[in-house]
Every structure is written in C-alpha cells, then in structure tokens.
C-alpha cells in the first residue's frame, strides 16, 4: 500500500502544470528526433541536457524521460514510413513495418506500433513500480558468461530470419559480426581490420551506416527496379473507422504484445544489454511462436507489435539499474545518469529513500509520458500517411538525402557516407541473389556486445568453454539458444527420414 501512496504523491508532482508541460514538450521533441534517420533518444537527451539546468532536478528528469519515451515511439515512424531505422532499437520494426507500408497498410502498422509501445511502456512501468529494488539486484548476477549466453540466444532467435537458405543466413550473420569487429581491439587497443590504414575505420563501422545502406539505399534501389520508378510507395488511407478497425484487429496480437513487454523489460534491466537486443529477441521469439512464421518479413503485424512493445519496455527497464544501482543499462540512461549527478543527486539504493519525491515523480511521469506519446502518435498518423502518398519521384530523392545526411550525422565523417553507399549497392546485388540482409544488421549491433563478453568469459575460465555450462543461469540460456539454433534443422531431418 505504501507503494500506491508514493505513486499518488508522484502523480501529484508530475501533474503540476510546469511538469505536465515538460512531459508534453519532451514527448513531442522526442517523437520528432526519434523519427529522424540517424538520430535517436541518445541524441535528443544529450543535446537537451543543458536545457534542464533551467528547471529543478525533478522537472529536468521528467523532461529527459519524456524525450526518451517520445524517441522510442518515433523510431518506429521512419522504420515503417521510409524503411530506414531511426535508431538500433527500431531495426526489428523495419522487417515487417516496411512491407506493411508497401502494401498500403502504413496506418495499420503505425497504429500497431503506437499501441504496442503504449502497452510495453505501461506494463514495464508497472513492473518498475512494484519490483524495482529486487530486480536490480538480480541483474547484478549477470556476468560476462551470462551476457554472452544472452547474445547467443539473441542470434539463435533470429537465425531463422533468412528463410530456408541456411548458408546465406549464416554468411549474413558472420559478415555483420566481422563488420562489428572493425576498429580498435577492445583489450589490446590495437587497430584491427582497418583495410589499408584507412583512418575512417579506426572508429569502427557504426551500425547505422550499414542499416541505412541496407534499409535506405538498397531498399530504394530495389523499389525503383520493382516499381519501374513511377509508382507510389503506398496507397494507404486513414479514417476514424479504419483507426478503430486497426485497434480492434490488434486484439489478436495480444500475446506478442505481452511477450514483447516482459522480454523487453527483463533484457532492458541487464547492464550492457538494453532495448536493441530486447526488441530483436522479441521479434525472433514472436516468429518462433507464430503459427505462420513464413509471413514474417512480408508484413506480419506481430512482427511490428513484438519489437515495439519490447523496445519501450526495455527503455523503462534500463532506468532500473540506473536509479537503484547507479549502473546505466543503455547509452541514453548513461547520459541521464550524468544528468542526475550534475543536478547534485546520488544514484544508488539510497536514492529511493533520500529522494522519494524525485524518484516517484519520475515513475509517475513515465505513465503520463506513455499516454501523451500514444495520443501524439495517433494524432500525427494522417500527416505521415499524406507524406507516403506523395509521388515516388518526389519521395525518393528526399529519402536519398535523408540517407546521406543520416549516414553522416552519427560520426560527422564523410567516410561513413561512402561506406553507406557501398553497403547499399552491394546489399542490393546480394538481395537479388536471395541473401537475407536483416541478420547482418542485427549482428553488427550485437557483435560489439558479444565479443567482449566471450573474451572475458574465456579469460575467467582460462580458455575453458565449459564456463558457459557450469554457471546455472548461463547454462540454462545456452541450452535454450542451442535448441533454437538447431530448430530449423528439424524439418530438414524429418523430411530426409521420411524420404
């Protein structure tokens, strides 16, 4: 009951006119930044952190948390509308969101994304409210072996993404992981795979360069060839009736929404994991659990719902270790943590005792930010649909320019823009030969998390792989991962035995 009382006190603070205005402005700014290719919540929070010095710490954290939430909603917009993931957290949304937009169902995809984000956000805030301290302690049990096992599980869940051509899917995963290894070796600090000492490779290959190349340039070249260059991208329409119908049709996706929410939240609270692995795992799990896995990647609404619920849930989950232990679960929460320290507060277990008003106002504002983001998103859908109905010869150059600028902005290096073009052109040629490209994007995101975890684990065990099977949590995750990896072989073996 004490929790309920504290939460109501938090609402009283969050609904003060100034704080409510900060929530609305924060959500709108976050939504816009999240929808821009190349910019995500981390950019929005980092850029606007100095602005928060003008308001008290409670107002400041409410504003930044609203930007964080808004950006999570916004990431889905560019994924669905343009096929370009605005941030790594929205990569999985592209797989089915984009095909739905091309089929003229952009409104359905956008409503599904907004609703799933709302459900994911709400469930995760409830979990946050009820179980914050014990969950934070559980997350600390995760060491390098557990993190690597979790990464392997993430790969296992999407190994089936590429359809039946297993060697091409595996090739795509391996090449993505190798690209993720380009740059400085994390342990020795030596340059690695810098291809003839090209300085641009020293900072590694940003995942957005590959993602924009594949989902922006490659997708556009593919669309131009398929549609003879003169077609509309989408024939979507929007009315109140279609909105209600879309929401109603989402009832059948409730399982994916709930699964994504819980999975995203628990992956989100793990240090060094965050929303990206959470959304990818949710997508893979939704596909594995689906009765029609073949429709994934071709416009299955569950493929939008599961990752969107997961990435919003994970964004809340990532705040948990930040507040309770002072450990950020994602790059954005790292900046939020910096803000908390600058405002003169000390993150950690004592925060919940010493700064109750601050913590509970933040939690209450997450409920409000969730609701405001949903309303803003749905209100803006007709505008997004209008953009999609522009002639292709207007939309295509705008998307190409967004790709170029989006490829440049993360690192401010033209080297990355050239690299993006190369990835786009080679990706287009590979796509024509049925190479699945999604696993490469997923691998470049997860590779930099998986490698240090593997190397640290082997260092801990003196090179013994058995470390992954002797620790209880790691061994359970590893066994699930191995079973999932072998699952695609089951129908083949069954067919052979019958044959």
């Amino acid at each position, binding site marked *: 009951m004490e929790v309920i009382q504290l939460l109501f006190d938090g609402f009283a603070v969050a609904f003060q006119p100034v704080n409510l205005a900060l929530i609305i402005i924060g959500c709108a700014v976050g939504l816009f930044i999240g929808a821009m290719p190349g910019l995500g919540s981390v950019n929005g929070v980092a850029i606007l952190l100095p602005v928060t010095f003008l308001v008290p710490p409670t107002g400041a954290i409410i504003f930044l948390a609203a930007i964080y939430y808004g950006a999570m909603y916004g990431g889905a917009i560019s994924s669905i509308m343009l096929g370009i993931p605005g941030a790594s957290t929205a990569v999985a949304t592209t797989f089915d969101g984009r095909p739905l937009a091309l089929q003229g169902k952009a409104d359905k995809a956008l409503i599904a994304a907004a609703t799933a984000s709302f459900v994911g956000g709400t469930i995760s805030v409830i979990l946050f409210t009820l179980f914050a301290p014990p969950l934070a302690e559980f997350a600390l049990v995760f060491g390098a072996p557990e993190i690597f096992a979790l990464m392997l599980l993430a790969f296992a869940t999407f190994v089936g993404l590429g359809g039946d051509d297993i060697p091409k899917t*595996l090739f795509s995963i*391996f090449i993505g992981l*190798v690209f993720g290894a380009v740059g400085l070796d994390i*342990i020795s600090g030596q340059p690695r795979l810098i291809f003839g000492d090209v300085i641009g490779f020293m900072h590694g290959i940003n995942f957005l360069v590959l993602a924009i190349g594949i989902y922006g340039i490659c997708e556009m*070249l593919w669309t131009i060839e398929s549609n003879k260059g003169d077609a509309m991208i989408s024939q979507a329409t929007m009315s109140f009736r279609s909105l209600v119908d879309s929401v109603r049709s989402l009832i059948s996706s409730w399982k994916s929404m709930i699964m994504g929410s819980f999975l995203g939240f628990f992956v989100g609270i793990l240090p060094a994991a965050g929303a990206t692995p959470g959304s990818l795992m949710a997508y893979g799990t939704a596909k594995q659990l689906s009765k029609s896995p073949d429709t994934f990647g071709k416009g299955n609404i569950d493929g939008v719902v599961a990752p969107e619920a997961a990435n919003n849930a994970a964004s809340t989950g990532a705040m948990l270790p930040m507040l309770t232990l002072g450990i950020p679960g994602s790059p954005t929460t790292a900046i939020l943590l910096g803000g908390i320290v600058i405002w003169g507060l000390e993150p950690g277990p004592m925060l919940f005792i010493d700064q109750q008003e601050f913590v509970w106002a933040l939690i209450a504002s997450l409920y409000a930010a969730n609701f405001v983001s949903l309303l803003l998103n749905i209100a803006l859908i007709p505008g997004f649909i209008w953009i999609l109905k522009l002639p292709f010869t207007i939309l295509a*150059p705008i998307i*190409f320019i967004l790709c170029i600028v989006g490829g440049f902005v993360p690192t401010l290096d033209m080297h990355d823009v050239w690299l993006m*073009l190369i990835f786009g052109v080679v990706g287009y040629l590979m796509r024509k030969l049925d190479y699945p490209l999604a696993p490469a994007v997923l691998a470049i995101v997860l590779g930099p998390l998986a490698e240090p975890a593997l190397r640290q684990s082997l260092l801990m065990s003196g090179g013994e792989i058995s470390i992954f099977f002797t620790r209880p949590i790691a061994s359970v995750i590893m066994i699930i991962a191995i079973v999932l990896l072998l699952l695609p072989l089951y129908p083949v073996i069954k067919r052979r035995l019958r044959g």
Partner: protein
Amino acid sequence: MRRAELVMAVVMGVFSLYLMWKSAELPIGWAEGEGPGGGFWPFWLSAGMLVCCIWIGIRWAIRASPPSRSEEPFMDRRAVKLFALNAGALTVTIGLFHVIGAYGAIPLFLIFYLRFLGRHSWTLTGLFAVLTPVVTFLFFEVALLKSLPKGYTEPLFEPIYAIVF
C-alpha cells in the same frame, strides 16, 4: 542469375580470405594474461564466412538454391539503366559534398531527380530545391548543432553563423 550466384560466392569467398589474413595480423590464439588475442574473434568469423561461401558453391553445383536454377538474367537492360542512373546520381552527389558542400549538392541532386527524372514542373522543383536545404540547415545546424560538410562554400556561411549564433 545462375552465373551471378557463383560470381558472388567466389567474390565473397575471396573477401573472407582477405579478412582472415587481415585478422591474423593480431594474435588469433591465446595470449598469456590477455586471453584470446585481438584477431581471434574476426579470424574465426571470417573462417565461418568462407565455409558458408563453399557451402553456397556446393548448393550452386547441385542446383539446390533458386538463383542457381534460374535461367533469367541477373539484371535486364531497364534494370541496369535505372540502377546506373540512381546509383550514379548518388555517387556524384556524395562526391559533390566534398567540393560544394551539402547545401550545394542537395539542390543539384533535387533538380536532377525532380526535373529530369521525375519530369515535375520547375515551380515544384524550385520549391523543393530551396526549402530542403533551408529546413536541413535549420534542423541540423541550428537546432541540433550538427555541422554538415560545406566544402569550398564554408566562407559563405560565416555571415549566417554570425546572425544565427
């Protein structure tokens, strides 16, 4: 299509060998006190790429994959023309970023695409060619403080910076 499948597998196989060679510039075995060497992870992943290319080659030989069975051309003449026009225009535009900067290259690309490829009116073309760089400047440079490349046009922006900042 069949020939393209083989060519891609061979090219990617060679690329895998190159990656293995480059990875081996760092230790790929066990380094005392450091655990697996810096080349360990990319070397074995590249080896995995090579194995996949050989596997794809075997499937090509026994005609197991759809492209290896296909008799269609990899790209017909129309596809080649569209690909060359779009990829070529993008290459030139990105090249122009170095010379005349983003705010010179973006209008030129829009004029080429909207007027000459899309056959839209000069009014619409002009509107997009002017508004797009203005909005880009306001959003990225003014609001987000992210400076886009300006090439030799950098001095032209100094009066604007003096007004805006």
